[in-house]
Protein backbone atom coordinates (compact mmCIF):
# COMPACT_ATOMS: atom_id res chain seq x y z
CA UNK A 1 0.00 0.00 0.00
CA UNK A 2 1.43 3.37 -0.90
CA UNK A 3 0.52 6.72 0.61
CA UNK A 4 1.11 7.90 4.14
CA UNK A 5 0.50 4.93 6.46
CA UNK A 6 -1.58 5.51 9.55
CA UNK A 7 -0.13 4.00 12.74
CA UNK A 8 -2.21 1.18 14.19
CA UNK A 9 -2.46 3.08 17.48
CA UNK A 10 -4.47 5.73 15.64
CA UNK A 11 -6.83 3.03 14.40
CA UNK A 12 -7.26 1.74 17.94
CA UNK A 13 -7.94 5.28 19.23
CA UNK A 14 -10.54 5.86 16.56
CA UNK A 15 -12.27 2.58 17.41
CA UNK A 16 -12.31 3.26 21.17
CA UNK A 17 -15.92 4.49 21.46
CA UNK A 18 -17.30 1.55 19.54
CA UNK A 19 -14.99 -0.82 21.45
CA UNK A 20 -17.01 -0.05 24.59
CA UNK A 21 -20.16 -1.25 22.85
CA UNK A 22 -18.35 -4.30 21.46
CA UNK A 23 -17.14 -5.18 24.97
CA UNK A 24 -20.68 -4.93 26.36
CA UNK A 25 -22.08 -7.10 23.58
CA UNK A 26 -19.24 -9.58 24.11
CA UNK A 27 -20.31 -9.80 27.75
CA UNK A 28 -23.92 -10.40 26.78
CA UNK A 29 -22.77 -13.08 24.35
CA UNK A 30 -20.83 -14.81 27.13
CA UNK A 31 -23.89 -14.60 29.35
CA UNK A 32 -26.32 -15.89 26.70
CA UNK A 33 -23.99 -18.68 25.67
CA UNK A 34 -23.83 -19.84 29.27
CA UNK A 35 -27.62 -19.72 29.54
CA UNK A 36 -27.88 -21.76 26.32
CA UNK A 37 -25.73 -24.48 27.88
CA UNK A 38 -22.52 -23.68 26.06
CA UNK A 39 -19.48 -24.00 28.27
CA UNK A 40 -17.23 -21.09 29.14
CA UNK A 41 -14.30 -22.49 27.17
CA UNK A 42 -16.44 -23.17 24.09
CA UNK A 43 -17.87 -19.65 24.07
CA UNK A 44 -14.38 -18.15 24.49
CA UNK A 45 -13.03 -20.29 21.65
CA UNK A 46 -15.97 -19.22 19.51
CA UNK A 47 -15.32 -15.52 20.15
CA UNK A 48 -11.62 -16.00 19.42
CA UNK A 49 -12.11 -17.92 16.17
CA UNK A 50 -15.36 -16.53 14.77
CA UNK A 51 -15.14 -12.91 16.01
CA UNK A 52 -18.45 -11.83 14.47
CA UNK A 53 -21.16 -10.86 16.92
CA UNK A 54 -24.32 -11.43 14.94
CA UNK A 55 -23.29 -14.90 13.75
CA UNK A 56 -22.34 -15.98 17.26
CA UNK A 57 -25.60 -14.73 18.74
CA UNK A 58 -27.49 -16.53 15.99
CA UNK A 59 -25.70 -19.84 16.52
CA UNK A 60 -26.18 -19.71 20.28
CA UNK A 61 -29.83 -18.76 20.09
CA UNK A 62 -30.57 -21.62 17.68
CA UNK A 63 -28.79 -24.12 19.94
CA UNK A 64 -30.40 -22.66 23.08
CA UNK A 65 -33.81 -22.94 21.41
CA UNK A 66 -33.16 -26.66 20.90
CA UNK A 67 -32.47 -26.19 17.21
CA UNK A 68 -30.26 -28.62 15.36
CA UNK A 69 -26.50 -28.33 14.96
CA UNK A 70 -26.98 -27.98 11.21
CA UNK A 71 -29.46 -25.11 11.65
CA UNK A 72 -27.13 -23.29 14.03
CA UNK A 73 -24.15 -23.64 11.68
CA UNK A 74 -26.14 -22.63 8.60
CA UNK A 75 -27.57 -19.51 10.25
CA UNK A 76 -24.17 -18.38 11.47
CA UNK A 77 -22.31 -19.05 8.22
CA UNK A 78 -25.01 -17.31 6.15
CA UNK A 79 -24.62 -14.30 8.44
CA UNK A 80 -20.88 -14.30 7.83
CA UNK A 81 -21.07 -14.80 4.07
CA UNK A 82 -20.78 -11.01 3.73
CA UNK A 83 -17.14 -11.39 4.73
CA UNK A 84 -16.41 -12.84 1.29
CA UNK A 85 -17.03 -9.52 -0.53
CA UNK A 86 -15.67 -7.58 2.45
CA UNK A 87 -12.49 -9.69 2.35
CA UNK A 88 -12.08 -9.01 -1.37
CA UNK A 89 -12.39 -5.25 -0.78
CA UNK A 90 -9.71 -5.17 1.95
CA UNK A 91 -7.34 -7.57 0.19
CA UNK A 92 -5.04 -4.82 -1.19
CA UNK A 93 -4.46 -3.50 2.36
CA UNK A 94 -3.37 -6.88 3.78
CA UNK A 95 0.18 -7.71 2.81
CA UNK A 96 2.72 -10.41 3.69
CA UNK A 97 2.83 -14.18 3.22
CA UNK A 98 -0.32 -16.27 2.79
CA UNK A 99 -0.44 -17.38 6.43
CA UNK A 100 0.06 -13.82 7.69
CA UNK A 101 -2.69 -12.61 5.36
CA UNK A 102 -5.04 -15.35 6.57
CA UNK A 103 -4.43 -14.42 10.21
CA UNK A 104 -4.69 -10.65 9.73
CA UNK A 105 -7.88 -11.11 7.69
CA UNK A 106 -9.54 -12.47 10.84
CA UNK A 107 -9.29 -9.00 12.44
CA UNK A 108 -11.71 -7.68 9.85
CA UNK A 109 -15.20 -7.05 11.23
CA UNK A 110 -17.91 -4.70 9.97
CA UNK A 111 -16.69 -1.89 12.21
CA UNK A 112 -12.95 -2.11 11.46
CA UNK A 113 -13.70 -2.54 7.75
CA UNK A 114 -15.97 0.52 7.73
CA UNK A 115 -13.62 2.74 9.75
CA UNK A 116 -10.57 1.96 7.64
CA UNK A 117 -12.25 2.83 4.37
CA UNK A 118 -10.62 5.83 2.69
CA UNK A 119 -13.07 8.41 1.28
CA UNK A 120 -11.24 8.24 -2.03
CA UNK A 121 -11.33 4.42 -2.17
CA UNK A 122 -9.31 1.56 -0.77
CA UNK A 123 -8.57 0.73 2.87
CA UNK A 124 -6.02 2.10 5.30
CA UNK A 125 -4.05 -0.87 6.64
CA UNK A 126 -3.11 0.87 9.90
CA UNK A 127 -6.71 1.78 10.72
CA UNK A 128 -7.99 -1.64 9.64
CA UNK A 129 -5.58 -3.66 11.77
CA UNK A 130 -5.37 -1.22 14.70
CA UNK A 131 -9.14 -0.92 15.05
CA UNK A 132 -9.54 -4.66 14.38
CA UNK A 133 -7.05 -5.65 17.07
CA UNK A 134 -8.68 -3.45 19.73
CA UNK A 135 -12.18 -4.68 18.85
CA UNK A 136 -10.96 -8.29 18.87
CA UNK A 137 -9.43 -7.88 22.34
CA UNK A 138 -12.60 -6.23 23.65
CA UNK A 139 -14.85 -8.90 22.12
CA UNK A 140 -12.91 -11.79 23.65
CA UNK A 141 -12.45 -10.01 27.01
CA UNK A 142 -16.15 -9.10 27.07
CA UNK A 143 -17.08 -12.72 26.37
CA UNK A 144 -14.91 -13.82 29.32
CA UNK A 145 -16.51 -11.27 31.66
CA UNK A 146 -19.99 -12.35 30.58
CA UNK A 147 -19.22 -16.05 30.81
CA UNK A 148 -17.80 -15.67 34.32
CA UNK A 149 -20.90 -13.90 35.64
CA UNK A 150 -21.62 -10.66 33.84
CA UNK A 151 -25.14 -10.24 35.21
CA UNK A 152 -23.90 -7.18 37.09
CA UNK A 153 -23.16 -5.34 33.83
CA UNK A 154 -26.80 -4.98 32.82
CA UNK A 155 -28.31 -5.23 29.35
CA UNK A 156 -26.50 -3.38 26.54
CA UNK A 157 -29.93 -2.35 25.25
CA UNK A 158 -30.67 -0.44 28.47
CA UNK A 159 -27.62 1.70 27.73
CA UNK A 160 -28.77 2.18 24.13
CA UNK A 161 -25.63 0.46 22.85
CA UNK A 162 -27.55 -1.35 20.10
CA UNK A 163 -28.32 2.08 18.61
CA UNK A 164 -24.60 2.87 18.46
CA UNK A 165 -24.06 0.44 15.56
CA UNK A 166 -26.47 1.85 12.94
CA UNK A 167 -25.28 5.34 13.94
CA UNK A 168 -21.66 4.32 13.39
CA UNK A 169 -22.37 2.80 9.97
CA UNK A 170 -24.37 5.85 8.90
CA UNK A 171 -21.63 8.23 10.04
CA UNK A 172 -19.14 6.18 8.00
CA UNK A 173 -21.46 5.94 5.00
CA UNK A 174 -22.06 9.68 4.56
CA UNK A 175 -18.49 10.65 3.55
CA UNK A 176 -18.44 7.69 1.12
CA UNK A 177 -21.30 9.06 -0.92
CA UNK A 178 -19.33 11.51 -3.02
CA UNK A 179 -20.19 10.29 -6.49
CA UNK A 180 -23.46 9.56 -8.23
CA UNK A 181 -22.45 5.90 -8.53
CA UNK A 182 -21.82 5.68 -4.79
CA UNK A 183 -25.18 7.30 -4.06
CA UNK A 184 -27.01 4.83 -6.31
CA UNK A 185 -25.15 1.92 -4.75
CA UNK A 186 -26.06 3.09 -1.23
CA UNK A 187 -29.73 3.68 -2.07
CA UNK A 188 -30.05 0.38 -3.90
CA UNK A 189 -28.15 -1.56 -1.22
CA UNK A 190 -30.27 -0.08 1.55
CA UNK A 191 -33.50 -0.75 -0.36
CA UNK A 192 -32.55 -4.37 -1.13
CA UNK A 193 -31.67 -5.02 2.52
CA UNK A 194 -34.89 -3.39 3.74
CA UNK A 195 -37.06 -5.34 1.30
CA UNK A 196 -35.47 -8.68 2.23
CA UNK A 197 -35.58 -8.34 6.02
CA UNK A 198 -39.10 -9.76 6.09
CA UNK A 199 -38.49 -12.63 3.70
CA UNK A 200 -34.95 -13.87 4.26
CA UNK A 201 -33.17 -15.09 7.35
CA UNK A 202 -30.87 -12.51 8.97
CA UNK A 203 -27.63 -12.08 7.07
CA UNK A 204 -29.09 -12.72 3.63
CA UNK A 205 -30.32 -9.11 3.22
CA UNK A 206 -26.75 -7.82 3.68
CA UNK A 207 -25.25 -10.37 1.29
CA UNK A 208 -27.92 -9.62 -1.32
CA UNK A 209 -27.37 -5.87 -0.92
CA UNK A 210 -23.75 -6.30 -1.96
CA UNK A 211 -25.09 -6.99 -5.47
CA UNK A 212 -25.91 -3.27 -5.60
CA UNK A 213 -22.20 -2.73 -6.26
CA UNK A 214 -23.01 -3.67 -9.86
CA UNK A 215 -23.88 -0.01 -10.45
CA UNK A 216 -20.10 0.50 -10.25
CA UNK A 217 -19.48 -1.61 -13.34
CA UNK A 218 -17.29 0.15 -15.86
CA UNK A 219 -16.28 -1.11 -19.24
CA UNK A 220 -12.59 -1.90 -19.09
Amino acid at each position, binding site marked *: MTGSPTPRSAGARQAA*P*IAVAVFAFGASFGLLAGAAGI*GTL*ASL*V*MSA*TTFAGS*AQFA*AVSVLGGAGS*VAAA*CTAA*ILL*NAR*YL*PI*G*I*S*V*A*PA*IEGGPLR*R*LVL*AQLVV*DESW*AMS*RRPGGGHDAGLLLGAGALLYACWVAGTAVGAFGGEALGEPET*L*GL*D*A*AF*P*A*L*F*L*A*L*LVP*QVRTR*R*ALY*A*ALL*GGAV*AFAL*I*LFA*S*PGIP*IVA*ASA*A*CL*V*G*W*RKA
Partner: protein
Amino acid sequence: MSEAWIVVAVVGAGTVACKGLGPVVLGGRSLPGSLAGLVETLAPALLAALVVTQAVGGDRELVFDARLLGLAAAVVAIRLRAPLLAVVVVAAAVAAAVRALA
Protein backbone atom coordinates in the same frame (compact mmCIF):
# COMPACT_ATOMS: atom_id res chain seq x y z
CA MET B 1 -17.66 -33.98 20.90
CA SER B 2 -20.68 -32.11 22.24
CA GLU B 3 -23.11 -30.27 19.98
CA ALA B 4 -21.78 -26.91 21.16
CA TRP B 5 -18.20 -27.80 20.21
CA ILE B 6 -19.28 -29.01 16.75
CA VAL B 7 -21.00 -25.65 16.15
CA VAL B 8 -17.95 -23.76 17.47
CA ALA B 9 -15.65 -25.70 15.13
CA VAL B 10 -17.82 -25.52 12.00
CA VAL B 11 -18.79 -21.86 12.38
CA GLY B 12 -15.20 -20.93 13.24
CA ALA B 13 -13.81 -22.72 10.19
CA GLY B 14 -16.50 -21.26 7.94
CA THR B 15 -15.85 -17.73 9.16
CA VAL B 16 -12.08 -18.02 8.88
CA ALA B 17 -12.58 -19.17 5.28
CA CYS B 18 -15.03 -16.35 4.42
CA LYS B 19 -12.80 -13.66 5.92
CA GLY B 20 -9.56 -15.09 4.60
CA LEU B 21 -10.39 -16.10 1.04
CA GLY B 22 -10.08 -12.65 -0.56
CA PRO B 23 -6.86 -11.59 1.20
CA VAL B 24 -5.18 -15.01 0.75
CA VAL B 25 -6.07 -15.43 -2.95
CA LEU B 26 -5.57 -11.81 -4.01
CA GLY B 27 -2.52 -11.35 -1.78
CA GLY B 28 -2.09 -7.60 -1.47
CA ARG B 29 -3.33 -6.96 -5.01
CA SER B 30 -6.63 -5.44 -6.03
CA LEU B 31 -9.00 -6.88 -8.56
CA PRO B 32 -8.19 -6.09 -12.18
CA GLY B 33 -9.93 -3.65 -14.49
CA SER B 34 -13.67 -3.29 -14.40
CA LEU B 35 -14.02 -5.47 -11.29
CA ALA B 36 -12.17 -2.78 -9.32
CA GLY B 37 -15.09 -0.42 -9.96
CA LEU B 38 -17.38 -2.95 -8.28
CA VAL B 39 -15.25 -2.98 -5.14
CA GLU B 40 -15.52 0.82 -4.98
CA THR B 41 -19.31 0.74 -4.94
CA LEU B 42 -19.40 -2.32 -2.66
CA ALA B 43 -18.64 -0.17 0.39
CA PRO B 44 -21.59 2.24 0.12
CA ALA B 45 -23.94 -0.65 -0.75
CA LEU B 46 -22.85 -2.77 2.23
CA LEU B 47 -22.73 0.18 4.63
CA ALA B 48 -26.28 1.20 3.69
CA ALA B 49 -27.42 -2.39 4.19
CA LEU B 50 -25.75 -2.47 7.62
CA VAL B 51 -27.46 0.79 8.61
CA VAL B 52 -30.85 -0.59 7.61
CA THR B 53 -30.47 -4.05 9.17
CA GLN B 54 -28.96 -2.69 12.40
CA ALA B 55 -31.66 -0.03 12.72
CA VAL B 56 -34.87 -1.97 11.97
CA GLY B 57 -33.83 -5.56 11.34
CA GLY B 58 -35.26 -8.45 13.34
CA ASP B 59 -35.64 -12.16 12.66
CA ARG B 60 -37.75 -11.93 9.49
CA GLU B 61 -39.52 -8.90 10.90
CA LEU B 62 -39.10 -5.16 10.95
CA VAL B 63 -38.60 -3.85 14.48
CA PHE B 64 -39.22 -0.16 15.03
CA ASP B 65 -37.93 0.70 18.47
CA ALA B 66 -35.65 3.11 20.32
CA ARG B 67 -32.79 2.30 17.91
CA LEU B 68 -34.59 4.31 15.24
CA LEU B 69 -34.81 7.41 17.46
CA GLY B 70 -31.13 6.98 18.29
CA LEU B 71 -30.42 6.87 14.56
CA ALA B 72 -32.52 10.01 14.00
CA ALA B 73 -30.42 11.78 16.63
CA ALA B 74 -27.32 10.52 14.82
CA VAL B 75 -28.58 12.07 11.56
CA VAL B 76 -28.83 15.44 13.32
CA ALA B 77 -25.35 15.02 14.81
CA ILE B 78 -23.91 14.11 11.40
CA ARG B 79 -25.56 17.14 9.78
CA LEU B 80 -23.98 19.31 12.50
CA ARG B 81 -20.64 17.76 11.48
CA ALA B 82 -20.13 16.21 14.91
CA PRO B 83 -17.11 13.87 15.23
CA LEU B 84 -17.65 10.10 15.05
CA LEU B 85 -17.43 9.68 18.82
CA ALA B 86 -20.18 12.26 19.39
CA VAL B 87 -22.44 10.69 16.77
CA VAL B 88 -22.19 7.25 18.36
CA VAL B 89 -22.61 8.54 21.92
CA VAL B 90 -25.62 10.72 21.01
CA ALA B 91 -27.35 7.77 19.34
CA ALA B 92 -26.80 5.50 22.34
CA ALA B 93 -27.82 8.20 24.83
CA VAL B 94 -31.06 8.99 23.01
CA ALA B 95 -31.98 5.30 22.69
CA ALA B 96 -31.21 4.74 26.37
CA ALA B 97 -33.25 7.78 27.40
CA VAL B 98 -36.23 6.68 25.30
CA ARG B 99 -36.12 3.20 26.85
CA ALA B 100 -35.81 4.64 30.36
CA LEU B 101 -38.87 6.84 29.82
CA ALA B 102 -40.97 4.23 28.01
